[in-house]
């Protein structure tokens, strides 16, 4: 085990301990419950910043590895690790959780204790997904995360919450159970659930899969991830889930859960099934582009503000998928950056929509109008976030979209030019909806006296705005750390190109002491290649 102790385990289970502590409290101590949830989630965020120290810049390996045998037959390991990509996704998760807690401060009235328990358990599952390096462990966290999310939607959601919750679970489960079959099939072929070991085996050619089998396995994984992303045409659960979920649920759903799908593609689909990824790439790209344009067009005509944001997610995540399947380092980094940026800005949009809902209890755009007059501060923040979401330079959304388009253009200029339509459309739907909500005459008397952002809300919004700006300006801070990990993925999916050769060569995975002879053998094969 590398120095660094059990930071990853601590990060996974610390919120669970917080949730347990909450369970012991009396149910009507709302102040304490909220306070503890907030403290736990902020502490978790601060812990997660230690990851920055644990993962050196330009390191492409998994760091802070923890590996312990869990089940002997079949060999399942409690194997955790973190690289540049998963590190930032975890930090995004721990960043959004305290914001979600704050956002639910007053809007959750009943069953407060259970709400925060579920929120913290959701964090456990999500962080586990990002750290797991054992396919089985990954699947376990992937499934465990479902239940708290379903409860968040189903108990504290809006009118059609039960329908949305059940739909969410069924969609995700139908994908993931096929993934389980895929994982088992892969285990039968390789004799291991361990991601680095299987990766080495497949890469070194020790275990060539028949093209048909590889394609089936790729699909078993890909469909599960595509449902989560969601990729057109598997996106239909998303608007329901978002519209019905409480604000915190939407923030976590859009901010983090969707990223689990794209993260899965980067971590599993591409490295494990490179040939199938190549064969599927044009189809995936077409679906991603359809998603980009379709999502944007639907968002353009949405009368419901929250649904508009939900469809904008479909559009933005299309960029991420496109960037991943362009197989270029730049587009891959763009995809990762876009995942983070989307997490922040769409999360912020949901927070703002939630604030409007807290005041007026409606998501209908037609109910609003001229809100800039009664609440100028909220309007200013909304504009700021909308601009970041539509990709204004200097703000976070721009970096990701630009890198994706740049990298994709290198590979297929047609893909990039279609996708660029999405950028234009996103400016359209965001600015138009902003105009209808905040500008013009106040059409409804109720809106005339709405209170402006409170101190709590301003705290949330300022935090988000600062991060948005920082990500827009200081993007190298992140890209320097994701570059090597992205390059590793690209290397595994296809040979290096001349213009990328200037980047530092990815290091081979050293065999850890517990992984045994199989790893050693495959490592040596890889080393002599």
């Amino acid at each position, binding site marked *: 085990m590398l120095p660094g102790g059990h930071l990853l385990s601590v990060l996974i289970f610390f919120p669970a301990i917080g949730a347990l502590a909450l369970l012991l409290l009396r149910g009507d101590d709302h102040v304490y419950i909220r306070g503890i949830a907030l403290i736990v989630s902020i502490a978790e965020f601060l812990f997660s910043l230690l990851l920055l120290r644990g993962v050196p810049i330009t390191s492409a390996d998994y760091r802070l590895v923890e590996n312990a045998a869990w*089940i*002997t*037959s*079949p060999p399942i390991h409690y194997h955790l690790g973190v690289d540049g990509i998963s590190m930032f996704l975890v930090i995004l998760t721990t960043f959004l959780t305290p914001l979600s807690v704050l956002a639910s401060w007053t809007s959750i009235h009943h*069953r407060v204790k259970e709400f925060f328990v579920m929120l913290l358990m959701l964090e456990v599952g999500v962080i586990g997904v990002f750290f797991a390096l054992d396919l089985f462990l990954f*699947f*376990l966290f992937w*499934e*465990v995360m*479902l*239940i708290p999310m*379903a*409860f968040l939607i*189903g*108990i504290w959601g809006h009118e059609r*919450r*039960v329908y949305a*919750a*059940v739909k969410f*679970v*069924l969609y995700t*489960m*139908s994908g993931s*159970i*096929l993934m*389980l*079959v895929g994982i*088992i*099939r892969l*285990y*039968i072929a390789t004799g291991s659930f361990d991601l680095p070991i299987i990766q080495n085996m497949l890469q070194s050619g020790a275990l060539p899969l028949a093209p048909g089998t590889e394609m*089936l396995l790729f699909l078993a994984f890909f469909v599960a991830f595509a449902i989560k992303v969601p990729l057109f045409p598997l996106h239909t659960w998303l608007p329901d889930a978002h519209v019905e979920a409480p604000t915190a649920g939407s923030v976590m759903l859009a901010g983090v859960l969707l990223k689990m799908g794209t993260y899965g593609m980067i971590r599993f689909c591409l490295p494990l099934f490179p040939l199938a990824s190549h064969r599927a790439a044009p189809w995936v790209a077409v679906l991603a582009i359809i998603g980009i344009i379709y999502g944007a067009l639907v968002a353009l005509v949405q009368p419901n503000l929250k649904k508009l944001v939900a469809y904008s997610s479909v559009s933005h995540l299309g960029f991420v998928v496109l960037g991943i399947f362009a197989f270029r380092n730049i587009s891959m980094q763009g995809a990762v950056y876009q995942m983070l940026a989307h997490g922040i800005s769409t999360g912020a949009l949901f927070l703002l929509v939630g604030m409007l809902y807290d005041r007026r209890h409606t998501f209908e755009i037609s109910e609003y109008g001229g809100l800039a007059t009664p609440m100028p501060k909220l309007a200013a923040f909304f504009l700021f976030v909308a601009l970041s979401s539509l990709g204004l330079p200097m703000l976070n959304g721009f970096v990701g979209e630009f890198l994706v388009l740049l990298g994709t253009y290198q590979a297929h200029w047609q893909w990039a030019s279609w996708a660029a339509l999405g950028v234009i459309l996103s400016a359209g739907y965001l600015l138009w909806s902003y105009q209808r909500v905040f500008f013009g005459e106040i059409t409804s008397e109720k809106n005339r006296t709405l209170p402006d952002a409170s101190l709590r809300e301003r705290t949330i919004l300022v935090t988000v705005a600062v991060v948005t700006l920082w990500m827009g300006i200081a993007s190298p801070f992140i890209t320097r750390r994701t570059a090597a990990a992205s390059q590793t993925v690209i290397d595994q999916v296809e040979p290096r190109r001349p213009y990328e050769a200037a980047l530092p060569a990815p290091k081979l995975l050293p065999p850890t002491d517990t992984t045994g002879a199989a790893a050693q053998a495959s490592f040596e094969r890889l080393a002599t290649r």
Partner: protein
Amino acid sequence: MFPTNPTNLDMLAVLPELLWCGFGVLLMLLQPFVSNRHFFTFLALVGTSMGAAAAVIPAAHAGPAFGGLVQADAFALFFRLLVGLVGFLVVLAAGPYLQRERLPFPEFYALLLFATAGMGVLASAQELLTAFIGLELSSISSYILAGYRRDSLKSSESSMKYFLLGSFATAFFLYGIALVYGAAGTTNLGRMSAVDPGSALLKLGLAMILIGLGFKVAAAPFQIWTPDVYEGAPTPVTALFSAGPKAAAFALLLRIFAIVPAATHLWFWAFWVLAVLTMFAGNLGALLQTNVKRLLAYSSIAHAGYVLVAFAAVTFLAGNSEVGASAAYAAILFYLLGYALVKIGAFTIVSQLGGLAEKNLSLDDYAGLAQRQPVVAAALSLFLLSLLGLPVTAGFFGKFYIFKAAVNSHLLWLAVLMAINSVIGAYYYLRVIVVMYMRDPSTEISSAPPARFPLTVKLVLAITVAATVYLGLFPNHILNFILQPNLLNH
């Protein structure tokens, strides 16, 4: 050849069954003289647990007994412990139920012990007629137990249906034995290795046996009786039905189809079709149920289908003389154990929430249970999630091992069909959870006093919850036992 006088070792090999029967007889004899209910409960608990404990003794001298009629191997030990545990838990759960419904105690326990003994025989029988005795012993006791609420029309209907259809099944089974005997010249499974696998008589006989046991495990298309019988029977008895006899019948089925070499090669498709039909029949049937007891009955059909998937894997491997069958056995055994515990836990909760005369069984009665009785709702949710196969529960590993067995046998399509069924299943299990957590109760329900959970019931729930989570986190210990090389002696 049978020795004329059984040796001590022979008696030792059937010690668990002797104890179970002995305590059953004792309960009946003491009935006129003792009026203390708790005494009978205590006696029944001692009986079930002593029988289970006694199963360990013959396993130390693993080998055939009574000239090969009975086999006290690790396989038998596993299932004897399983049915003993099931009996123990059902006794614990049944006490408050019997008291609430004002039903007599001693006969109930006696019948339960006889049924357990029958299941024990099924688990250890190496010879078909011995198995038949076990089947009859457990079935006849079960028929009576199903109708134990004599004044309830539903319970009587349940008993009658179970009896009629069960008798048919037994007849099939017996006829099958006759045909197999005609083909093989023996009813001893251990001596059937020399049988001509192509014999039509043997095929027909085994088909009959499969049909007979198919009834007992509620495999489609022989599952029609299940929902009615499960719904009508007293709920602790339903818990018993869904856990004990099913596991025992599967044990016998596994022993037959693992040992008879002629059988294995032919039966892969039979099990494939049975598995698919059973999964769909159970899951599709459960979708529309509004009665929780009936819903769980359909779910138990579906789960029989999952186990049959592993049977298809076993027969496929054996038919192609491939190795790896032991992993498929392990899948079956592990699944049955986890499933039995979960079902007993779930039915125990249903039994307590049912109230006097089992009135409150509809889904609406569960509305808002999470607010009224949060711990009970959480426990039931855990059981349902285990049935659904979510991680950190026994059901997850059970399903995982079956998936693995199926994929290992190249039965990818069967695995995919099972995956589809799991998703269908997710819908109705979630529906119960949704009702408990996300729906508000009617005023009538919320004003009623909460269902009582006496100490013994709490103990049952504690054991089943702990076991469900334990098997979901550390399946190793049980698996290492199941995966031992000489699991099945023959």
